């Protein structure tokens, strides 16, 4: 089977690489006067970053939710070396919005960006989530995995057919749930200990079983262990589910072969950046370690 087989929704746009300007950076979940960048280690704080795209960047209709951009502040020079991938949270009225969490060096350096700073951005990249306007659709987000669903829900022609089930560890106020459109159902569930996590997985299974039973669509984005759980439950209940992977990436364009994942129907590993990040759950073999620190990834829920 060809290397580039379409596994999920088709990409809607052709990507470009341009310098963007920072319009605004805002910490969520805190009063403005308390917002301060961390200096000595990841603080797991959450930020909304608004960027001004140049005129020739694909506009509102030129991307599919679930697609992402690579982002690299000009000030980084060679350190950190790689750009970082981020879901397009919103692309509306000439503003590209990213919702990110500080987890390491790159995101920490992003949390001190200032208005007017220049950022090299390339995208929109990858293949996004399918949209089936009339199908009841369950959005499963784990922590920062909420980001692509904000754009998905805002772009969806029938938000009343959507339901978000959102698992998180930090306080719910860290997340910009107010950006979701009116009329969609939202349930947030916080886990701070192992018992709560077990309870969450039980809730997850009930919802997946329900949507499988009614031939609904399930879309999930979140840390690797969360996606593994969703995948096994989706397979168990024969649900139609798509998963968005967050593998470590260097190039984002399908050149370095560092982001690959194994699938059930391709001989060679597939590139998450160009053949994903969204895949049908039954096509993936998620046994492989993604290169992230699993404890950290779990901690991000």
């Amino acid at each position, binding site marked *: 089977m060809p290397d580039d087989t379409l596994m999920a929704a088709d990409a809607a746009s052709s990507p470009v*690489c341009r310098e963007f300007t920072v319009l605004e950076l805002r910490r969520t979940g805190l009063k403005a006067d308390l917002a301060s960048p961390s200096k000595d280690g990841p603080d797991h704080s959450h930020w909304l970053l608004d960027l001004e795209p140049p005129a020739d960047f694909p506009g509102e209709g030129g991307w599919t939710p679930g697609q992402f951009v690579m982002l690299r502040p000009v000030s980084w020079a060679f350190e950190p070396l790689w750009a970082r991938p981020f879901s397009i949270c919103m692309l509306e009225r000439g503003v590209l919005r990213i919702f990110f969490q500080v987890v390491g060096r790159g995101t920490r350096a992003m949390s001190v960006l200032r208005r007017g700073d220049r950022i090299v951005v*390339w995208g929109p990249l990858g293949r996004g989530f399918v949209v089936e306007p009339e199908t009841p659709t369950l959005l499963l987000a784990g922590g920062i995995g909420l980001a692509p669903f904000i754009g998905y829900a805002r772009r969806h022609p029938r938000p009343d057919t959507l339901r978000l089930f959102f698992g998180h560890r930090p306080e719910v106020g860290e997340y910009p749930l107010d950006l979701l459109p009116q009329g969609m159902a939202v349930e947030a569930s916080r886990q701070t200990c192992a018992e709560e996590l077990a309870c969450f997985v039980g809730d997850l299974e009930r919802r997946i079983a329900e949507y499988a039973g009614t031939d609904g669509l399930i879309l999930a984005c979140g840390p690797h262990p969360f996606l593994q759980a969703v995948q096994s439950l989706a397979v168990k209940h024969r649900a139609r589910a798509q998963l968005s992977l967050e593998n470590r990436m260097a190039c984002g*364009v399908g050149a370095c072969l*560092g982001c690959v994942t194994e699938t059930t129907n391709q001989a060679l*590993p597939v590139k998450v950046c160009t053949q994903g990040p969204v895949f049908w759950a039954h096509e993936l073999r998620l046994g*492989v370690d993604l290169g992230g620190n699993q*404890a950290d990834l779990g901690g991000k829920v």
Partner: protein
Amino acid sequence: MNPAVELAGLRLKNPVLTASGTFGYGVEFAPYGDLTELGGIVVKGLSWEPRAGNPMPRIAETPCGMLNAIGLQNIGAHRFVAEKLPLLPWAEVPVIANLYACDVEDFARLAEYLAGQEGVAALEVNISCPNVQAGGILFGQDPGQAARVTRAVKEKAGTKPVIVKLSPNVTDITSVAKAAADGGADILALINTLSGMAVDVRTRMPRLANVIGGLSGPAIKPVGLRCVHQVSRAVDLPIIGLGGIASAEDVLEYILVGAWAVQIGTANFLRPDTAFRIAADLPKLLDDLGVTSWEEFRGALRA
């Protein structure tokens, strides 16, 4: 000045090529620039059979560099010729096939097949990949083996130039360079990645599943420059220099120590228009420096 350059019959519009493994099959970069503005495109290393490569994780970031242990994942020579080559503007920009094999017979078979393709302008022989235990490392580290492989490829390459790509993971790179020259290489390319590793103290695990990988990026530029400097004084063949190049100025540093052309590798990941920008920046920098010909500038290091 006109930045065009000719090496062993290989005519380049400018000396800026892309490095194997960092530019995909070329087509991946078409959205970010005009491929025909490059001096040449070296594609991902090809083997006879498709290869799945090494387990994940197989890339890691390091200070001003990266480690990779991709293990030469590629779609195989046949699928490259059938599916990728027709998409490249090979009539306007030289497309160079980088080849990898585990034994001399396989190298010869690959060379014959790829040199026979109209769209392939030259062959680059990877005798230096540090990621595959099954032979790769031996060819590049043993002068006798390097000469054997070069001879086998050269015999099958017909009129197409043969570039031999050298590894820096040796005590004396000039002895391998001389061996490749004796084997009939038309051009030498150096350097491939430096063998290295990275460790996570929290998990106590190596950052690559393969444990050891190849270091590339700006961090290795001093090593690349040193190797080109040494080899250009020891061997009378045109050299393509690479290792850590990220700007037009870096290109000229390599040419000053003796390179005829260069390849852009890891810098293609920093932003996908890097190679195009470097090719576009070069004429202005040459003008600013008052350079009027490559012959005057090449190897003109004051040392």
